[in-house]
Structures are given as structure tokens and as C-alpha cells.
């Protein structure tokens, strides 16, 4: 089959995404998509055109066993053979983090759409440091924003089977997990509301060392490596 002709390639991509490209032709096409950039782009464009039509399908709650089986499989995989090298070295991860750029674009779109734009100069910042008081991580969020961004000052070394988990330390309450963070890139964390309210009773943030996948208990289980007070720059 000739995939060289762009119109032909586009027509095949359309049939592939719709599902009418079947059998060996489908397998062959799927293989080519992985190696040919042009085909991959055509497939993505068709997915973007057709998949939104799936939104009209009524949702049906799957039985709980499906989630239990998924969980068993991903935890089983984790308990099994560890990949050589750290998962952080995984290229896929870094491609995933290009998310950040797009999310920024999206945030701008939201600002344009929303009548009340966020004031960019009113920021909450926390500098997290270890015992030697050297700054290790910087977290910031606009006071009306709902996305906290956190980034290490320089890449951190952690074991392949460990993860860094960020915690809000509320006054007189248990630490509340905000999610896992990357030892070398920016991570965006959604807060439960605008930072002003979501972090109102939270004087400081901390990062603990946890097993991969995060604390199994919902509370820090490993040592607290870094912490720092939240400063309000307004």
C-alpha cells in the first residue's frame, strides 16, 4: 500500500481512527504510525476530530472489581522487577512535563475568558530547605490561583524506588498530601480552591521521602527532608 501520497495517508488515518481499517491493514498501519511522523500527526488530527463524538455516549459505572484488578496489576508490577536506572530518567516522563507549557497557555486562555483576571503580583511563595538551611525547592502560587508550582533549585538524587511527596502542614492538624513532586522538573499541583483560602490555615509546606507511588497511609511515612514557611508577597 502506498502511504507516500499525503491524501491517501490522511484517508487511511481517518479509516484507522474511525475503525473501518481492519485486519492486517490495520496492524501494518499501526506499525507505520509509530515510525512515521507524518502519519502519526494525521492520526492525532483525526482523533481530535472524531473522539469528541464519544462524549455523547452515556456513562456506565464499571463494577468495582475493574479498579481492584488495575490496582493489583500496577502494584504487582511495582513490587516486581525494578527498571534499570531511575524512573526519572525515563524519557516519557519528560515529554509528559511539556504539559507545563501547555497548561500555562491554557491558564492564559482561562484568564482571557474569565472577567476577573488573576493579579499576577500577589504571590504565595515557599522556599523549602533541608537541615543545612540551603534552599532546595521553590513553590509558588498566585493568591487567587488554584495551581501551585514547585521546582527543585537543582536536580535532586533519590533512589529509584522512592518518591518525594509534598505536604501541607496545617495549624493543629495532620499533614495533608498535596501530591508527588519531581526531583528535577516543575510540577503543577491543583489546590482545592484559590490559594488564599486553600492555604489560609497552612503556615508551611514539607517534603517527605516515600515509597514509589506515594505514602501508602495518607500520612508521611518516611523522613521529612525539606520544609519551609509559606510567605505572602503582598
Amino acid at each position: 500500500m502506498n502511504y507516500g501520497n499525503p491524501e491517501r495517508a490522511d484517508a487511511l488515518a481517518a479509516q484507522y481512527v474511525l475503525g473501518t481499517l481492519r485486519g492486517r491493514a490495520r496492524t501494518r498501519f499501526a506499525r507505520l504510525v509509530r515510525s512515521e511522523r507524518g502519519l502519526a500527526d494525521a492520526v492525532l488530527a483525526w482523533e481530535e476530530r472524531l473522539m469528541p463524538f464519544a462524549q455523547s455516549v452515556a456513562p456506565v459505572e464499571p463494577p468495582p472489581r475493574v479498579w481492584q484488578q488495575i490496582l493489583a496489576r500496577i502494584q504487582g508490577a511495582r513490587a516486581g522487577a525494578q527498571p534499570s536506572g531511575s524512573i526519572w530518567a525515563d524519557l516519557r516522563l519528560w515529554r509528559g512535563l511539556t504539559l507545563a507549557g501547555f497548561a500555562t497557555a491554557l491558564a492564559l486562555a482561562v484568564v482571557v475568558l474569565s472577567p476577573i483576571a488573576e493579579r499576577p503580583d500577589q504571590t504565595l511563595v515557599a522556599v523549602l530547605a533541608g537541615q543545612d538551611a540551603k534552599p532546595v525547592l521553590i513553590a509558588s502560587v498566585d493568591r487567587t490561583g488554584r495551581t501551585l508550582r514547585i521546582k527543585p533549585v537543582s536536580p535532586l538524587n533519590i533512589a529509584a524506588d522512592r518518591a518525594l511527596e509534598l505536604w501541607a502542614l496545617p495549624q493543629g492538624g495532620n499533614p495533608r498530601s498535596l501530591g508527588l513532586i519531581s526531583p528535577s522538573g516543575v510540577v503543577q499541583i491543583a489546590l482545592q480552591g484559590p490559594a488564599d483560602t486553600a492555604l489560609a490555615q497552612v503556615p508551611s509546606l514539607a517534603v517527605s521521602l516515600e515509597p514509589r507511588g506515594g505514602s501508602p497511609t495518607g500520612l508521611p511515612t518516611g523522613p521529612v527532608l525539606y520544609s519551609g514557611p509559606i510567605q505572602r508577597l503582598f
Partner: protein
Amino acid sequence: MSFGKRTADAPDAMARDPAKQLERNARLMELLARTALADQRAFAELYRLTSAHLYGVALRILRESAAAEEVLQESFVSVWNHAGSYVAAKSQPFTWLTSIVRNRCLDQLRRREVDTITIDDEDDGMTMRDDAPTPLELLVSGAEALAVRNCVESLDAGQKQALALAFYRGLSHSELATHLRQPLGTVKSWVRRGLERVKACLEAAGAGR
């Protein structure tokens, strides 16, 4: 055939209001990014927000709950392993997830192709419940949500029917020909022309890329 409990309060994961959609997409992107960091809680939340819609899609195509459950399970394990390969600049999160599920459904169908799939015309294959919308109705309401209703309305009846059955039910060209009682060549050209018109129309409406 049991299809499990229907979602009474579907999360607004599939909200149709554009502002809500932006918010939902941003949320799903963030969850995917955290899933790429092997954050299990983020992954659980992603499942909670999207699994009912994706399961609905799989059930429509496979028409068998055990097979749909298997596809859903495989798909989410794959999402866990490949969340990092999701590139937000290239596709919307729901698009990415639906594509994974549909591709796995189509693989399942292919494995089944040795068996003959008979489609009962009376029943329209929709044994889910009596008032379940037909693929054609889904196509029209899907188009409505996309504000491209005119595009879909402008398709010929045959094109519309063929695209709807292929998309929502995963029918192949030859299954379409049997189901619609038309020569294979006619059905193929309905699908081809229908797709071309959808593309042209979406591009004109600024909805396609």
C-alpha cells in the same frame, strides 16, 4: 446481559459548557502529569473521573460486559505505564484516553472476527436498554455538543448511518454492508465521503485541526 449500574450523578468530567471543559481538561492534564510521576492518588482520581464514560464507550462497541471490563482494565494499566507519553500540546486528554480504549476495543473485535458477529436488525444490537439512543442519535447529540450539528446534518442519510455505526459500534465495511443491506462499494464510499465532509465541515467551523 448486565451492564452494571448506570451512573446517576455522572461527574462533570464530560461537561459541555466550554468554560467547564477547559477546567475539566486542565484537571485531567494535571492528573495525567502526576500519573506520569507514579502518583497513585492522582491515577485513582483520573479513573474516578473518566472510567464511566470510557466503560460506556467500550460497552457500545463490544456489547459484552466481560470484554468491556477487560478492555477498561488493559487501557488503564496502559495509561499508568504510558501517562508520560501523553503530550498535551498534541491532543486533549479525553481524546487521548478514548483513543486508547477504542483501539483496544477494535483489537478485541479483530480477535473475535473468526466468529461470525450477527447483528439483529430489529434489535439494532442495542440490548443495553429499550430507550438507549441509537448510534445515529448519538452522532447527532455528539455533534450538538460540538456545535457542529449543521455539519452532521449536512451528511447524506447513508453517510450518517455508516459513520455512526462504524464509530459507536465498531462495525467494519463488510459488517456495515450486511447491516445496511447495501453493496460493499456503496458503503465504502459513504464512509469515505462522510469522513471527508466531516473534516471539511469541522475545519470550516474551526473545531478541527
